């Protein structure tokens, strides 16, 4: 009798522990925990190609880049992300000097919430990429993203971009046929890296990568962001120049 009572109590405790573990923010079963608030400590207006060197532009890519640079200078091309606060898109948003959050919820989704322009990226987990028809009918600033985990890394594939964004703040171009792959993982208990591969044969002669690193900053609460208003102090982010 006594041993029966003991094992019932143990069983209840196991059940409770299992339930908590399943729900807890720090244990997603096999899935790594990359959730949290992140904030880069440096910003670069010009995207840095991993391995060094210039952007591997095609002739069309060079022409588009030159047109953007000249247009941004004389005002005929508007940097809509800064002027109207439309989303920066990929990969430009990865350079954000503002904090952002990664949520591993709701079930089946990763949700990335940016302070900058209050952009939200939705990544469907373990789902196929939408059809070409859907991607071309509804091109998004941030594209359509699907993701899956490979060991400690979240792999995000994105396609179906519109052509209203730049690759970076200097006006580097991309076409609506760009596809990106991000590999996101914790490289230390307090740092996250995102290595993005850009595939856009119209403008680039080969696939190329850029790497972004963020500090885990769960002490930071994201602020509102409304275009044209004063926003948070960014002096902790090296390389930010405010006009």
């Amino acid at each position: 009798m006594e041993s029966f009572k003991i094992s019932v109590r143990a069983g209840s405790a196991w059940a409770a522990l299992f339930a908590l573990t399943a729900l807890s923010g720090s244990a997603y079963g096999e899935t790594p925990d990359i959730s949290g608030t992140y904030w880069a400590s440096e910003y670069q207006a010009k995207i840095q190609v991993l391995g060094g060197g210039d952007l591997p532009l095609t002739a069309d890519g060079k022409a588009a880049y030159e047109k953007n640079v000249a247009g941004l200078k004389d005002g005929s091309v508007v940097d809509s992300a800064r002027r109207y606060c439309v989303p920066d898109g990929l990969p430009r948003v990865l350079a954000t000097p503002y904090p952002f959050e990664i949520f591993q919820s709701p079930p089946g989704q990763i949700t990335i919430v940016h302070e900058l322009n209050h952009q939200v990226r939705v990544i469907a987990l373990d789902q196929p990429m939408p059809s070409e028809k859907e991607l071309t009918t509804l091109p998004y600033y941030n594209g359509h993203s699907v993701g899956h985990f490979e060991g400690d890394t979240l792999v995000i594939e994105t396609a179906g971009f519109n052509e209203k964004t730049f690759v970076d703040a200097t006006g580097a171009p991309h076409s609506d046929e760009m596809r990106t792959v991000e590999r996101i993982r914790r490289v230390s208990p307090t740092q996250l890296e995102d290595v993005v591969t850009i595939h856009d044969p119209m403008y680039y002669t080969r696939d190329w990568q850029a790497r972004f690193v963020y500090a885990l900053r769960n002490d930071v609460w994201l602020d509102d962001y409304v275009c044209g208003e004063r926003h948070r102090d960014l002096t902790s982010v090296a390389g930010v120049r405010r006009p």
Partner: protein
Amino acid sequence: MPRPAANLAIGVLAGAFCLAAGSSHPALAQGAARPDFAPNASVGWYAYNRIFIPPASGAGPVQQDRAHPYVSNDEFRVTGKQPTSQLADLSAPILQPWAREAVRKRNELVLSGKPANPPYASCWPAGVTGFLLRPMTQAMYFIQGPQEVVMILSSKQEVRHIHLTDKHSANVKTSWFGESIGRYEGGSLVVDTIGLDDRTWVDGFGTPHTKQLHVIERFHLMENGQVLEANVHVEDPGAFTMPWDAIQHFRQYEAAVRAMPIERIAQLASAPEGPLQEMVCADNPRSFFPSADAVLAPEANTPDF
């Protein structure tokens, strides 16, 4: 199992229970039930109305002037009836004289045939109470993280952050959405918001508020998880003569789409029921129908960085 080993096992398990509870789920550690507003990525919530539902008793929200029935865009989509603008019943006892005057001025614009649209019609934030009136055709989503709940309006990617902590910051700066803290309690998510600046409308009637606005919302599920109810308690001694309460209900689908085939819905605005889709207000907010009282959408004259 021999008793000493059993006790050890229970002790270890109990210890692990406390450790896990403390590290990730303060609400669970309190023994509170956590309602699940997002059991999967496809659950989005659509408002029943663009006007708050009055409480069963006690002071309630500003309502539509009965002499001018409100026909919403949503009703038009299904019935074809001429849509009308919201027009406030100025006898609302909760309004202080200056607040009543502000609402009356908007009423006048409407009666003179002007649209008198709220700031959010020009891509400005809806604020806290206004947030609950927005998702008629484009759903509201919850992201329930361990330390924070985020509410997202798909129509403009408007985001509210609710931090699961029991105290507001010592010095709260005012902002469009204020500072929201929350806790799970008895099957509800209870949200307490202060620090709202005074630029938003409390509702679609143009009811103003001051920086003293304090909003307490209780979100809970009804009807077997099919309906989300928000019980809203509003205090603002600078704008209202008394605290008042309001109710809003949300369902997991747009009512019009269940009422008739989508090919027959005029001006269909909603995404298919499913995960949050990208909709950017600043994509093309300009109108080709200029109105004297429309405000410019937010824009930055100099780049932020």
